[in-house]
């Protein structure tokens, strides 16, 4: 069992460049927080954060197309990791744009330096999950991302509801982590390795060899699905979602509805598709049932919400359901390393949906934050008459609502279209799920359009407070434009990028030769 360490190949640090840039950003932010003079403090830290995420996204260009594993198979740079990293970094940068003035001015001026540092560490954890090649790496990444997010949720600590939401999120989060890691332990026991490709190879032989799966593997699968379901906020593991989303400061809600969810989906794709792909017959129907429950529950409960943040929380549960349909449609015939087929389309549709969801959901929360700057609350009534008093904000919110509903010409429509297409191609269960998506989208139109109607047809309650939020305005504008332009022009290109995920399964060579 002893290994001569000098024989191991040295790691290729360049492949981890995006992660290293974000790590450097977090450390630089820690120092800048202490040593920047007070009057430029907020602006310098915001600029540093945006620069850091921009550099990290640019460095993805070096990694793209490499398709290699390094750090002794712990770390992979493949199509899946590049696309997910892009989604996570875009979401982080958009969060910074919508958080800067909120953290600095509202809720009794929270310490912005600590906020950005925690944001960077949470982003770093999600990036590690996206590039993980091993169960240990997935677990560490998810925990890094979650722990930073628990603190961010409690960040508005002068408000009891924020700390209370954080407490519920924390208790259910660590409970889910314990279940998840117990599932990982059983997978390791059944296959003798924690490496994702090693698990896939071991399962492949046992499925082909005997056609009989050990009960311990099914037990492990169940634990993993429950643990990941908690992290993804799938019904019936969603209890924490509305309270944590409602309690957290609005930009934090925007962040935690996208980045930890992206990390959870990254882990799900890595574990279920990449490692446990050979036993997909066992998990496909389980995921399909959870997807149906999740989207039905999310959409139906969202109808009765008067608080816009809670409504968006339930809507995000519904969107988790749509994305899980993309996963349930993974019924590839060719198996691993085969040519691109229907199964590849399915996971690509999930990835594209995640990208679209990141933009439109952060956009919707950013408009809520924009209104909070102007002295309004979070209920539906606070939005009344917005179309008359603040036409641009109302227009932006309308764009995001239409995109979340899935109506052309927005990016949300294209994303939903791709998921439905993949589901129909996958067989009778998929067809049923596709019909469910269409019906439930019609249900969701009720609460999304109700908000639009309140903004345009109700009388304004009072004149909003005058204040200037240039970065937030620019961010909302960029997201609204991206939502429309993404649907009209760029959707096919982005989808092609997402489609390259299947290279994730064809990584064979370890960098540095040998082994």
């Amino acid at each position: 069992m002893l290994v001569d360490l000098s024989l191991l190949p040295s790691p290729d640090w360049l492949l981890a460049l995006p992660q290293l840039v974000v790590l450097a950003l977090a450390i630089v932010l820690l120092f800048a927080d202490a040593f920047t003079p007070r009057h430029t403090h907020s602006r310098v830290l915001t600029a540093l954060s945006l620069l850091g995420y921009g550099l990290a996204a640019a460095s993805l260009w070096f990694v793209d197309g490499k398709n290699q594993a390094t750090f002794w198979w712990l770390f992979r740079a493949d199509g899946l990791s590049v696309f997910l990293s892009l989604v996570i970094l875009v979401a982080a940068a958009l969060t910074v744009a919508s958080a800067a003035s909120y953290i600095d001015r509202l809720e009794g001026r929270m310490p912005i330096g600590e906020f950005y540092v925690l944001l960077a560490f949470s982003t770093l954890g999600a990036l590690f999950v996206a590039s993980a090649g091993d169960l240990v790496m997935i677990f560490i990444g998810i925990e890094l991302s979650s722990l930073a997010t628990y603190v961010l949720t409690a960040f508005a600590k002068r408000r009891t509801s924020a700390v209370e939401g954080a407490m519920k999120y924390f208790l259910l989060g660590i409970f889910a982590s314990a279940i998840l890691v117990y599932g990982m332990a059983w997978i390791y026991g059944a296959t003798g390795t924690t490496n994702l490709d090693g698990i896939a190879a071991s399962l492949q032989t046992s499925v082909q060899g005997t056609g009989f799966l050990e009960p311990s593997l099914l037990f492990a699968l169940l634990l993993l699905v429950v643990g990941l379901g908690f992290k993804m906020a799938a019904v019936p593991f969603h209890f924490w979602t509305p309270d944590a989303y409602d309690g957290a400061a609005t930009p934090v809600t925007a962040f935690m509805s996208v980045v930890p969810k992206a990390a959870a989906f990254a882990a799900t794709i890595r574990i279920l598709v990449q490692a446990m792909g050979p036993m997909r017959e066992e998990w496909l129907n389980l995921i399909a049932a959870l997807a149906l429950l999740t989207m039905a529950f999310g959409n139906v409960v969202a109808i009765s919400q008067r608080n816009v943040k809670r409504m968006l929380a339930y809507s995000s549960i519904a969107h988790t359901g749509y994305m899980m349909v993309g996963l349930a449609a993974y019924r590839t015939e060719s198996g691993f390393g085969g040519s691109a087929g229907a199964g590849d389309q399915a996971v690509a549709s999930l990835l594209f949906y995640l990208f679209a969801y990141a933009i439109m959901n952060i956009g919707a929360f950013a408009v809520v934050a924009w209104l909070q700057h102007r002295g309004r609350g979070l209920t539906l009534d606070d939005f009344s008459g917005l179309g008359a008093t603040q036409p641009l904000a109302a227009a932006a919110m309308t764009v995001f609502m239409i995109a979340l509903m899935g109506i052309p010409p927005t990016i949300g429509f294209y994303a939903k279209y791709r998921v439905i297409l993949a589901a129909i191609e996958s067989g009778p269960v998929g067809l049923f799920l596709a019909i469910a998506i269409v019906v439930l989208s019609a249900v969701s139109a009720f609460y999304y359009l109700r908000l639009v109607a309140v903004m345009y047809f109700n009388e304004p309650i009072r004149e909003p407070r005058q204040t200037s939020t240039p970065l937030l305005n620019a961010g909302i504008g960029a997201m609204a434009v991206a939502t429309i332009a993404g649907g009209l022009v760029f959707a096919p290109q982005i989808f092609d990028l997402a489609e390259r995920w299947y290279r994730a399964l064809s990584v064979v060579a370890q960098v540095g030769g040998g082994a």
Partner: protein
Amino acid sequence: MGELGTNHFLFLSAALFIIGMMGVLVRRNILIIFLCVELMMTAVNVALVAFARETQTLYGQVFAIFTIGVAAAEAAVGFAIIMALSRRVATVDVDEFNTLRD
């Protein structure tokens, strides 16, 4: 009395895990719930090390060390949040936390 085999450790691990899980679901005191989750993490460590012995590989032992580290980090963050909450609400009963409602 036979020799201690992998199954014995797995039964121990499963027992710890189930005790922890029941504690989380039944008890209403935040600190007890937190300790029960720690018990579940311990069950995971026992299972990992037992599997490492069974499969004659080192992955499980390495994984267990990381799990212990993560559990420590969870404790640090958890107690910070419990402290922040106890300054607002003078109770450790989770049923008393009902500011957030549908």
